[in-house]
């Protein structure tokens, strides 16, 4: 996913000389294509995320479209106030890019796991929050954000994600994407956990269920229209995210559903159950341990009384 991001950004930056990439000393072997092909639009700001983010704001206020780049919580929580005061409040054209949303850096430990970022960034006014599900969405998000004037957060996986979507027509910030039509059960997901959702979908189909599947590449602004429509037509809405269930994508869905007058669906939120990961293991292992791998998703859905 990060390679797709870099490849896409290189193509955009070759055409738009105002695009700048600023890294917090990360991206070994990954950002090379960018600095080789767009050397004048690349900066290593060093291991200093607070400064990097305010520098990006200053550059953006002078007309640049600035992508800041780092991993885990470093480009977000480490410099949250710089994003809030200097980028968002000034509506500065800064795109904060995080590699490693969720459990990507599994074995590296809790410091490197970004599991509250969506909630925290979503709470900032004037910040668009995006988490692409696969390589196709990653490319579309990058293109859309390069065009978007304002502050945004782009949460990426790392490597090894697949192309799951064939292609996406009419990609738009703020719009969910329908992957499968279905009945009774509708599964919403954001980010790279989509691969687990896809496997869960296959399993549910085998067992005779027919769930609908939507991805939400944009967490903020959330696609209220789709959530409302689905909540009126389906019995169960399931939100899946590689993130704390508090405040993140599932909460955004819950906020919409809670304010609806006539809804049919109950909501089931699947994600990290308000805890830090203390176990050691790779992304796949941690998803299993914390109940968001495909088997856990299937189990949790089938436990819901509304569907049995």
């Amino acid at each position: 996913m990060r390679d797709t991001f870099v490849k896409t950004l290189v193509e955009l930056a070759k055409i738009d000389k105002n695009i700048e990439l600023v890294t917090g000393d990360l991206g070994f072997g990954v950002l090379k294509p960018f600095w080789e092909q767009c050397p004048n639009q690349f900066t290593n700001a060093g291991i200093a995320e607070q400064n990097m983010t305010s520098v990006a704001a200053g550059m953006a206020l002078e007309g640049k479209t600035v992508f800041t780049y780092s991993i885990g919580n470093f480009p977000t929580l480490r410099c949250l106030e710089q994003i809030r005061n200097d980028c968002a409040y000034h509506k500065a054209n800064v795109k904060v890019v995080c590699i490693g949303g969720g459990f990507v850096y599994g074995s590296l430990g809790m410091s490197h796991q970004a599991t509250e970022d969506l909630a925290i960034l979503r709470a900032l006014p004037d910040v668009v929050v995006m988490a692409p599900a696969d390589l196709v969405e990653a490319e579309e998000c990058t293109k859309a954000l390069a065009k978007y004037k304002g502050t945004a957060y782009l949460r990426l996986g790392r490597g090894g994600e697949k192309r799951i979507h064939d292609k996406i027509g009419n990609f738009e910030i703020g719009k969910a994407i329908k992957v499968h039509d279905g009945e009774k059960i509708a599964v919403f997901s954001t980010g790279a956990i989509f691969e687990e959702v896809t496997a869960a979908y296959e399993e549910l189909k085998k067992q005779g269920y027919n769930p609908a599947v939507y991805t939400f590449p944009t967490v903020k602004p959330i696609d209220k229209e789709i959530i409302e429509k689905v909540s009126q037509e389906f019995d169960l809405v399931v939100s899946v995210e590689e993130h704390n269930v508090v405040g993140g994508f599932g909460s955004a869905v819950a906020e919409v559903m809670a304010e609806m007058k006539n809804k049919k669906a109950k909501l089931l939120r699947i994600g990290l159950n308000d805890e830090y990961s203390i176990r050691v293991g790779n992304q796949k292992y941690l998803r299993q341990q914390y109940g968001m791998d495909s088997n856990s998703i299937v189990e949790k859905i089938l436990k819901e009384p509304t569907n049995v």
Partner: protein
Amino acid sequence: MGHWTSEQLAWLIRRHGIEMTHLSGGSHIGAILSVADIMAVLYADVLNYKADEPKWAGRDRFILSKGHAGASVYAALAEEGFFPVEELKTHYQNGSRLSGHVSHHLPGVDFSTGSLGHGLSAACGMAYAAKKDHDDSHRVFVVLGDGECNEGSVWEAALFANHFRLNNLIAIVDHNRMQSLDFSENTLELEDFATKWKAFGWNVIEIDGNNHAELKSAFKKAEEYRNTEPHKPTVIIADTVKGCGVSFMQNDILWHYRFPHNGWEYDGAVNELHNARPAGVEDPYTPNGIQNPVKPQSTDDIGHDHTFTSTWNTSYPETMRRVTAKSGTKEPVHCVVEEN
């Protein structure tokens, strides 16, 4: 270049500062008074700007990173024609554009501040963007507080500015040696401050920051450095006195947060300023000063050393003491305490 001389503008900033904090009950008059001369020289003699075209591309960029001294930049902007002087009285009030800390929702303000340690980085970004565009039409100025230099992000930015050779960036530190609770040196030792900046690769100019002649020659020297030492950013360490211009506010930590209340505090400040008024300036609030001013009584809390006396300093750990000083004086405050 401004409408006023720097001396006139500095006086106006001080007078507006007293009125604005008095009317609003707002804090930070000490900082407003210490930075007034820096702001005045910048807006009268140094910065290029067009008051009727605040976003003019060729303007020098300016960030007041110590955003709590916001009244000083508001007063300078209003007096130089960016918005009506009358509006200054709305500072802190419901519905005003003039928040206590600097807001960019006002013409002439390039960047909002208020949380310390952001301004130098943002200024770096502005200067860096100009460098990338080979745009030599303007410079970037940023005023920091010395207490603000406790923030680690200031030193991240100091590294960045040197590394990227931002010689179009000029930082001025309002070195009034005091911060919220105490002298800076008793909080987190900053000295040798100039050597720190030098070690980070900066040109350093040290001056009396309440002296206009020294300020003007410092800015000239900074301009020279741009050509003679083009690989370095420049910092002007402006030694100032917190509360400068009102005797009983000088070097007294009380006036970091306290505002001039009705009675001797307001009357005394107004009349001291009134008597020090430069030629060609009218006092916009009290044209004739205050007749029969209220005078402090023997029981009033004036001239006391709030930084060190029991009224303020009951339980401060002695191990952190690095300097001693007297309030209400312009004398040097730095008598380093001998360590045992």
